[in-house]
C-alpha cells in the first residue's frame, strides 16, 4: 500500500540525541506513526514491524497508531531510519524532500536494526560505547 512519508522533530527523539546508541533513541527514531484505519488495511497491530520502501531504499520500523494523521500519510521522527529511505536529490536547493517521500509499507517479521548496524549497511563500522 502506498503512503506519503513526512519526517520531523519529536520530544522523544530530542530527549535521546546524546544517546544515539541507546534502545530509547532507536525506539524514538525507528517508530512509524500511521492512521489506525490504514493499520487495519495492511493488517498490522501496534508494536509490530513494517518494511518501508521508497525509490531510495528499504528500512524496517515499528508501527504505532496516530489518529492525528489522515489516511495515506505516515510520520517518522527525523533520524537515520527515516533518512535511510529519503532521496538525496535537492532539486538545486541544497534541501532534500524530507517532508514528502512516497513509500510503500508491508508487514514484516524482520527486526529493527540497531543504529550502528544500520550505518554498517552504509559502509560504516559500529562503535559500541
Amino acid at each position: 500500500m502506498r503512503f506519503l512519508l513526512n519526517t520531523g522533530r519529536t520530544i522523544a527523539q530530542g530527549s535521546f540525541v546524546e544517546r544515539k546508541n541507546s534502545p530509547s533513541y532507536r525506539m524514538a527514531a525507528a517508530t512509524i506513526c500511521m492512521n489506525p484505519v490504514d493499520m487495519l488495511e495492511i493488517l498490522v497491530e501496534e508494536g509490530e514491524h513494517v518494511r518501508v520502501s521508497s525509490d531510495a531504499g528499504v528500512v524496517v520500523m515499528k508501527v504505532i497508531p496516530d489518529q492525528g494523521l489522515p489516511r495515506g500519510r505516515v510520520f517518522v521522527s527525523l533520524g537515520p531510519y527515516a533518512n535511510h529511505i529519503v532521496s538525496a536529490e535537492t532539486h538545486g536547493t541544497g534541501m532534500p524532500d524530507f517532508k514528502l517521500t512516497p513509500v510503500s509499507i508491508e508487514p514484516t517479521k524482520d527486526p529493527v536494526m540497531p543504529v550502528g548496524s544500520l550505518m554498517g549497511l552504509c559502509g560504516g563500522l559500529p562503535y559500541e560505547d
Partner: protein
Amino acid sequence: MKIEDVVCSFCGCLCDDLVVEVDGKKVVNVENGCTLANEKFMGDHRLETPIRRTGNGWEKISYEEAIAETAAILLDADRPLLYGWSGTFGEAQSVGVHLAEILGAVIDNTSTVCHGPSILAIQEVGHPGCTLGQVRNRADVVVYWGANPIDAHPRHMSRYTTYCDGFFLKDAFKDRKVIVVDVRETESSNVADEFVRVNPGGDYAVLSALRAIVRGKRDIIPPNVEGVSREQLFRVADICIAAKFGAIFFGLGLTMSPGKNKNIRNAIELTQELSRHTKFTISPMRGHWNVYGSNEVFTWITGYPYAVDFARGIAFYNPGETTSVDILRRGECDACLVVASDPGAHFPRACAEHLARIPTVQIDPHVNVTTHLARIQIPVGVAGIDAEGTAYRMDGVPLRTRRLYKGDYPDDQEVLRKIYEIVREAKG
C-alpha cells in the same frame, strides 16, 4: 553550588533563566528547564577519549595523535568539506571558517538541511522580523506555520507567545489568538484557536490564497484550496487583519516541503501584505541552539551564511551546488570534518555512504550516528556546561553561554586552533 540565569544550549530559544545545581564536575539538578534541557544538562554520556577506527575495530588514542592525524587528512585532501558548526559557539565557528579558507575547502553549516531555504528567500525579499521580546509583549495574534513548538522548542509558547504575560496585553492568555497551520495534528495544533490543515505540498497555494484575500480579492478564491475551505481562509485572514500586532513563526514544514525557498518567499510577502493593514512580523524557528550564530559568523568572515566554497581562493556561494548534501551525493569531497552536528543521522543515506567511503573526522562530545561512519572522533566539552562562548538566539540576539564547572575536556575552539596551526605551518 546553584548557578542562576544559565543559558540552555539545546534549541534556538536559548532560554536564559535556568537554575542549575553543580556538584564538582557533575550537574545534579536543573530548574525551569524543559524535557530537552533536563536531558542535556543531566545527561552523562560523553565519549571518554579520542577514538580511531582500525580495520575491524576501534582504539583509544591521545588528543595529540588525533589532532595531528586530522590535520594530515585535511592537508592530504583535494576537496575537503567542513560541515556542522551549529552546536558550537561563535569563537570556534570562526576558527573553522579560517581553517576552510587556508585549506581551500567547502564550509557549510546545518542550515543547509534546516532554514537554508529561508535564507534564500530572505536574500530575495528581506526579513520583516523582530525580537522575541517584541512578540511576547505586543503580539495578540501568533501563527505557527509548519512548526510544532511543543515538541521542537518546548518553552517557546510559555516564554514568548501563547502562555506568557505581555506588557501591552491586559489578559495575554485569553487575548492572544493562536493559529497553527500544518499537514498533521500535533500537540501544538491541539492548543490552537484555529488549526488549518493543509494538504502535503499545498502551503504555497494556501499562502497565495491568503495574500489574495488580504489584497481584497475574496471573489477569486475557490471553495477549497489544498484541503482548506474558503470559509476558514476568510476567517484566518480576518483574524490576522484585525490583529494589533501579529507574529508568524515558520518551521521546517515550509522549508522542506515542495516549493521550499519559494514557500518562505510567499510567507514573507503575505507578512508584507498584512503590514499594509496592521503590524505583522515573520521569523524562522531555528533548531540548533547556535545555528543562527553559524550564519552570523560565516557572513561576517566570508559574506555568505552557509555553503561557502573556498576552492577558487575566494569565497563562492551557490546553494544547490556548494551545499553539503549535493557535494556528498555527487561523491565530490575526499575528506570531511564534522563539528558539532550529526550528518549520519540527518542526511539521506546516499550521503552517509559517502561519509563512510572517505576519511571522516568528527569533533563532538557524544557518540552519535556519524561516529559509526568516522575514522576518528575527538570528544570536547559541551558549551553551556563545561565550555563557554557566544551563541545567537533564533531572533538574532547574542547571548553568552557560561562554563558551569571546569571539566577534563578541551573545547571545540582549542582543538580547532591546534588543527589550524598545523595546517597553517604546512601551508607556509
